[in-house]
């Protein structure tokens, strides 16, 4: 389909905010991201689902922090890790996704977004919307709505 829109001006691109999580590179659309902040003082919520790491105070707004490693079924953060907060907007305010490290904002052609490989397993399969081949790595694009669905 890209052959129809070959001109440079009409070529559609998307920007992704990228981050590292358990040695994989993930991306979310820049439009979804409110801000990225350092590790924050966190108030744990007893009895809450595992994926909830706690609550943070973001300039007077209370934001729930989600452990993205757990959400994606990856091994837990190593002890002493200082996860970064990727704050994304959602219906009831904002939610912070805890990630290992922040990467660059990358711009890719929309057409390069491919379906996730069939052999992805578990939650990842549902939460990863697509894959983008890049020079030296794969960018896994997160389905932000599904990621933020409250787990039952």
């Amino acid at each position, binding site marked *: 389909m890209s052959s129809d829109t070959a001109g440079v001006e009409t070529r559609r691109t998307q920007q992704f905010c990228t981050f590292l999580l358990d040695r994989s590179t993930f991306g979310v659309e820049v439009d979804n991201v409110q801000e990225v902040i350092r590790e924050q*003082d966190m*108030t744990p*919520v*007893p*009895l809450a689902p595992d994926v909830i790491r706690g609550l943070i105070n973001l300039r*007077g707004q*209370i934001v729930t922090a*989600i452990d993205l490693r757990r959400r994606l079924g990856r091994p837990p953060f190593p002890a002493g890790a200082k996860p970064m907060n990727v704050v994304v907007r959602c219906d009831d305010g904002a939610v912070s996704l805890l990630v290992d490290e922040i990467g660059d904002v990358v711009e890719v052609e929309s057409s390069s977004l491919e379906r996730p490989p069939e052999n992805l397993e578990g939650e990842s399969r549902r939460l990863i919307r697509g894959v983008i081949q890049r020079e030296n790595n794969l960018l896994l694009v997160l389905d932000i709505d599904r990621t933020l669905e409250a787990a039952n």
Partner: protein
Amino acid sequence: MGEMDDVVKEFLVESYENLDRLDSELLELESHPQTREMLSSIFRTIHSIKGACGFLGFSRLESLTHAGENLLSLLRDGKLGVDGQITTALLELVDAVRQMLTTIETNGAEGDEEFEALKAQLKSLQGGASGAAGAKPAAPTAPTAPTANAPANASASETTSAQTSAAPAAAPSEPVPQAATPAAQPVAREATSASAAPSAAPSPERAKPAAAAAPGAGVAENSIRVDVGQLDKLMNLVGELVLARNQVLQLASHSSDNAFVATTQRLNLITTELQESVMKTRMQPIMTVWGKLPRVVRDMSAALGKSIRVEMEGKETELDKTILEAIKDPLTHIVRNSCDHGIEPPALRAERGKPAEGTLTLRAFHEGGQVILEIEDDGGGIDVERVKRKAVANGLITQEQASRMTEREACSLIFAAGLSTAQNVTNISGRGVGMDVVKSNIEKIGGQVDITNRFEHGLTLRIKIPLTLAIIPALMVMAGEERFAIPQVSLVELVRLEGEARRNAIRSIEGALVYRLRGRLLPLVHLDRELGLPPLDVADDEAIHIVILQTDGRQFGLVVHRICDTEEIVVKPLTKWLKSVPVFAGATIMGDGRVALILDVLGLAQRARLLGDAQERTSYVAEGETLRAGSETKRLLLFQVGEDLRMAAPLEEAARLEEFRLRDIEASGDQRVVQYRDEILPLLPLAQAFGRKSSLDQTTRDSVHAVVVRVGDRNYALVVERILDIVEQELKLDPRSRRGLITGTGVVQSKVTDMIDVAAVVRRLDPASHSMAPLADEVSV
């Protein structure tokens, strides 16, 4: 005809809202027919529409909803199952009601449509859903036929959507702002109608407020209309400011800069004043809610053939708009209840020597940062015995529970769902809907209801509500490393226990801890354990802190590690991710910038399972309390021995209640012992003394329960099957029942219980004790 008063308008807005909800509820009900809660909610909606029709004079709508209500009441009580046919009929009812409301909105009257077919259908469905199944299928479509705006073969959902879209069309300026913020109603309505008036073609009733505003121009110079949304925003900003102020105060407390500290003080004062001023803009006098009550009472008393006078005290008492909105319905319901089954008919009043005219007094006043609303009538009060009988008959409580209930507990039964004390089901009330709703609505806004009953002389309902919801006073406590806020409304008192006092006041019953506070046994809950936090090691002789809390009419003690200050906190809701955690009501930001969770006391009590069986436990306590006046009462420890023996010993003879793990039990000679507080404690199987099998010999268990007693100068652990309870009561022992190890037999908690002779039991089971215990012990106990 075009004239419509505010009451009718309000009724329309509310009913539309309720009906919209009904559609979805009915559909959900069809897929989950077992949800009683949903049925109750649907029933309530129809019930309240019917109720309003009654006093607004819409008799056709009333008779239609009455038919629906009859059917729903059978469904709710489980006498009839929900099936497709019933759901269809109910959806048609919703459509018909909506149609009538639209007619009322446009014409000011309910029109001539009678919906006879639908009424007949609703009635025939009451006869049993399975009844004439063959004959029915044609019927559901029939009622829709006369309703002109739906083709006869239209499905129910089509009809619904057609009519919902019809309703907004008829009222172009109304629904949107009001549906969004119910609290914003009056102001928003006036504002929109005023602005709509010049441009759109105004319908008669909407033109009225705009016209009325013109002559009032003199007043207008001193006041302006403000959108309630704007006020809400302002309130939120003030909330933020309060947080920032708290943070600055905290910084200032560590500062040695005098100028900074002084400035902080000023900031503090100004913020407080600003907070109060902004809150004031949202305040309205209670009269805005009371205003419609006299009419309700007049119409009711006319219908019931009674004569009732309404008196009001404290009309000018002001409350936050949101709260006024929330208490409007509960208040109306209570008043209707008082008129209907509170105040007696004139003849009975004369018999009781009261004036023929009954009095209903409404009071409002401030007390300790809260508003108290009282609704008092000089009617018959609550016949406690009748309420109990009814509750037993309806299966709400058992006969045994009923007999143990205090008057106060029995009175609070009127708030239970499904209890109606009216003798007859009348059009006005008596279906057992309402008081439960009243209570839950009031509790939703952090309020409490209390009853003072004077049988045959009247009843007072006392409602305590907070002034505002956004900023509340709370007590901060620590559990482990974490801080939690407890809303002050649930707080009863704080207790600090140390050393001897701690050992004496806290007991364990079957692993459940109880605390004895002035003769009452309160269940204890450890906050850290309940929340699954890593427990802190607290030494036995260290002080512990107990926060006594009250919820749902019950008290319990919450053990925390530290009690901090009370603080004004700004309540922030939790995200949907945390909705599944019912022990938290929200979160707040503290002075140091960290987030603290706000405990939901009711949720916490439910999680600790205090509310279910606590009913029994507190009634034991109440029993103990009433009997304490007599000098014969004794504190008894109740326990089970073997499979069948129920025994008691005087509590003062029990040093401690313990649970020993079997793997900690060692052997010494022919005895079993445990190492216990630097001594070797012999375990004496009580069961053995009474020819029963001891729990020590049961290999299936991991631990045994024991009562540690001191006889002579030694401690012994009497192994029992389980500890049952601690009660305080008079024990009448039949002297003829004295035998061997048993000093007598009596009845405790309506069960036969043997009182054991502790010293004699020890001597029997541990021959070695003879040499140690002086013989004099043998004589008494």
